[in-house]
């Protein structure tokens, strides 16, 4: 008798599970065919599941606004995997407005001539964006960045022309008669 009861229990419990599965046929799909559907586009045709375009705070690739960066090197120092390289020259003294919501002013005397972020190493932890006093290094919502070659993952944020311009500026600044100021020095971003 037990034998038949077991069989009956097995069949009925499977049927119960199948009923749950069956109900899924009448619900909206949960997934999208990713490369065909642009998930960054809010109006995804034919899709009504829970998936939303990436959120406001999404930690995608890093970008940096080099006109605001004061080359303080804090981001490079906090980064656990050493993927930021900042080199700077001393230039004329100006002030910049922070990109953070408070918009605080900071004095700027150092100008980056090289700002590289190695996205192949970056683990998108966000520690650099938290320490940056001006908020100029921040995440974008971009996450599609396959590259054919490894070195293409190193993003250079300062073009050679811009670096040349800053160097010239720095040289002019250094040439100015300023007895108390030392000449511009290079700051190596690489930690030991």
């Amino acid at each position, binding site marked *: 008798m037990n034998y038949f009861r077991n069989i009956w229990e097995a069949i009925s419990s499977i049927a119960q599970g199948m009923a749950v599965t069956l109900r899924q046929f009448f619900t909206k799909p949960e997934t999208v065919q990713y490369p065909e559907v642009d998930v960054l586009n809010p109006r995804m045709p034919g899709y009504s599941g*829970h998936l939303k375009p990436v959120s406001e705070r999404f930690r995608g690739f890093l970008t940096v606004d080099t006109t605001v960066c004061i080359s303080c090197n804090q981001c490079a120092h906090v980064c656990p995997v050493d993927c930021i390289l900042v080199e700077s020259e001393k230039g004329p003294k100006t002030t910049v407005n922070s990109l953070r919501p408070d918009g605080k002013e900071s004095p700027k005397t150092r100008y980056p001539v090289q700002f590289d972020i190695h996205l192949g190493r970056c683990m998108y932890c966000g520690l650099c964006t938290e320490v940056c006093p001006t908020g100029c290094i921040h995440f974008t919502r971009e996450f599609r960045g396959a590259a054919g070659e490894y070195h293409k993952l190193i993003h250079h944020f300062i073009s050679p022309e811009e670096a040349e311009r800053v160097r010239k500026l720095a040289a002019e600044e250094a040439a100015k008669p300023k007895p108390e100021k030392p000449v511009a020095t290079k700051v190596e971003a690489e930690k030991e």
Partner: protein
Amino acid sequence: MSPLQTDIWTLNMGPQHPSTHGVIRFVLKTDGEIIADADPDVGFLHRGLEKIAELVPYPSFMPYTDRLDYLAAINMNWAWALSIERLAGIEVPPRAEHLRVITAELNRIASHLISVGALASDMGAFTPFVHALRDRERINDLFEELCGARLTFNYCRIGGVSLDAPPGWFDRVRGFLDYYEPMIDVFNRLITDNKIFVERLRRVAPVSAEMAIAYGLVGPNLRGSGVKFDLRKDEPYGIYPQLEFEVPVGRGYRDGVLGSCFDRYMVRIEELRQSIRIIRQCLDRIPEGEIQAKVPKVLRPAKGEVYCRTEAPRGEVGFYVISNGEKTPARVKIRTGSWSAMSIIRELSKGWMIADLVAIIGSLDVIAPEVDR
């Protein structure tokens, strides 16, 4: 006529076997289908996290703790933050404590979902795994709104958390809980009640309470053997003492043997409900205020050492940190739940079938990054 002779065979299981949950390899000695010995070969995912901890400053080690157990990153973050807070004597603001509990319990749900789903899929039922992942995806969405990442959250900070909840986030968490609570019953109908599933687990590989303690099992694996030990209750940290919840233990569910694979599975299912209960209480009472204590930019804790353990989804995770007064720790030792679960597999699997080994691994919820660090 001489009796039938059988040879002992050596069989490799893993490191790419789908049910070893990551890169773990077992060298099996089998007598037909019966396992005579299962020798775990670990180390495929060794990243030297303990050494890395000695090289980076205290706050910069936080993202590495994500990788310690990528299915429960917040619990790992919290354990590290708590260790350093104890070491340096930092007081965490109440709002941050609440946010930590909410996120950690959400993460526990996400992690248990993978665990129960993966066990079902190891048993040959793939659909429950997809159902579990679907619900976990919603938790990931919540986390993405909160901190921007879907897997390696890096959310806790020494002295608090990194970001406050965005507007409307708590309502969305509540919405998720309302959605998810009935889903547990649906999941139970889908697989837990399934006769075949129950029969495959309920008498397999029982671990007695003494054996569990002797092998140092922790977390749901220990509770599955009927030992009521939960660090959230027995050695409370954070705001857990102010919250009401039960500690589910195994009791031979479905006429099975106490401490069997099915008990461990059921403990996880019941913990899902308790986590929901904890989150609801936190949502009701979360205060306004700071989310980050004042912590010096370059943290140099005074000379000393600390061992701090917390309850992660895979059991206790403990950090033993020695400080020399420098900005990097002098030594960090990490103890995780999967490591002790790994050590019992050899003893436990003797005499069971190869197919049962899959159930044993799945029910112990061993994952490779925790074993190897």
